[in-house]
């Protein structure tokens, strides 16, 4: 019925995104995150939790050496430029996963439309639609998309019996030649949404969370729905004065506000859904 859709909803179909509203113009859900880098210790619990939840294959040393690892959630460790000699201020850890951009560079370039912006404000990756052109990853500024270079269920490393019994039936094991990435544990979100719909309501704050957020020992990761103004994540974003639909935040224009909220590569205008809170260091120490 496309033609009718086209003619009827022409104006709607011509709208750009995100729209200037806290939830970027999403009606029911806008899943987002806030990650406090001051308490993120870089312990990798989130990463392992992600392996457990999302059926990520273990690729083994040889493939890892070729940069073909499959961790959707990776912990990056950087050193201070100034004291690389002896890192007096410790290391800098950054949990990096798909930023679920509101205007994702990966989406426009996919030839088959396997990756889209969902009504819930996620960057969906439809595994079966993917033909493996890898254009999305080529265009991803964060390089958080992971390609199935091999047929991992066939690889000796990944799932020898009885390890397959651990696999989560709520999502597929991706086959060879498919692009995959962090989904904000969409299988959990869908389940929660279904329950909520049965009860004729929307998902409550804290009712559902991602595997990484749930595992994080220091609770550095906050996950929630930005449409709900009272959800933890909305409050964090609001208090940090980070606005979803802006590529330059007002607080940054007006000099040092001392607020810690920022988004990685904001200037690329991809409008990520993950806000990081700056790591703090005591200069007196």
């Amino acid at each position, binding site marked *: 019925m496309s033609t009718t859709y*086209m003619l009827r*909803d022409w104006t709607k*179909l011509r709208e750009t*995104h*995100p729209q200037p509203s806290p939830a970027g113009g999403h009606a029911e859900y806008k899943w987002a995150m806030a990650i406090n880098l001051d308490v993120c210790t870089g312990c990798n619990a989130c990463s392992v939790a992600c392996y457990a939840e999302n059926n990520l294959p273990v690729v083994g040393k040889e493939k890892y050496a070729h940069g073909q690892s499959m961790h959707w959630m990776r912990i990056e460790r950087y050193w201070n430029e100034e004291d690389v000699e002896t890192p007096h201020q410790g290391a800098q850890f950054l949990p990096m996963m798909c930023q679920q951009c509101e*205007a*994702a560079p990966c989406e*426009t370039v996919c030839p088959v439309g396997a990756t889209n*912006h969902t009504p819930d404000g996620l960057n969906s990756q439809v595994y079966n639609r993917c033909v493996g052109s890898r254009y999305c990853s080529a265009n991803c500024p964060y390089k958080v998309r992971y390609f199935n270079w091999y047929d991992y269920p066939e690889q000796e490393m990944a799932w020898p019996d009885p390890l397959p019994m651990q696999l989560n039936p709520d999502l597929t094991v991706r086959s060879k030649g498919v692009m995959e990435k962090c989904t904000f544990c969409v299988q959990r979100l869908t389940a929660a949404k279904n329950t909520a719909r049965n009860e004729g309501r929307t998902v409550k704050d804290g009712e559902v969370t991602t595997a990484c957020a749930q595992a994080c020992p220091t609770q550095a990761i906050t996950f929630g729905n930005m449409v709900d103004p009272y959800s933890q994540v909305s409050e964090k974003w609001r208090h940090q004065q980070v606005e979803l639909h802006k590529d330059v935040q007002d607080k940054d224009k007006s000099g040092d506000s001392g607020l810690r909220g920022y988004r990685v590569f904001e200037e690329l205008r991809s409008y990520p859904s993950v806000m990081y809170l700056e790591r703090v260091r005591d200069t007196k120490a």
Partner: protein
Amino acid sequence: MSTVRILGLFNDFDAASAAILEVREADIPGLNFDDVTIKSPIEHPDVEAVLGDRPVPVQKYTLIGSILGGTLSFFLISSAQGNFFQQLKGGKPIIPLPPNFVLTYEMLILGGVYITVLGFLIAAGLPARVKSSIYTSMISEDQIGVLVKGSAHSIEEVKKIFQKHSVLDIQEEVVA
């Protein structure tokens, strides 16, 4: 009274066109000048002049083709994008104009080319069967042929004219 077709072979365009010119001026009864045709190994706009102007409809097809290709593709693509799924992509509109114009442009050319060629085949009457009696491989080599159709006695006249212009060879064929 039977109609006859003859093909006169000439060595060069000068001879050929001279012959045609004379046939034209002679204005022989029972002979329609439009039935005079030149067969030659190469393109010859200058020579064709002597035949007077004859229609070339190809470019009409071209016009139709490109218009069809352009509009249809734009319409199809936009409505395909606006389907039930209508997924947002990269913050761009679901029906983004620049890409659609790019594709429209390509399809315009596609339509144009295809239909033009179709037009060519129709206009040039191809594919056709090669009648050996009034065709010779010499034409595809270096000789120019003049094909005339007319009543038997008018053809006689034409023959005379051809001889006058040192025709190399004349092939004849009776059509009903």
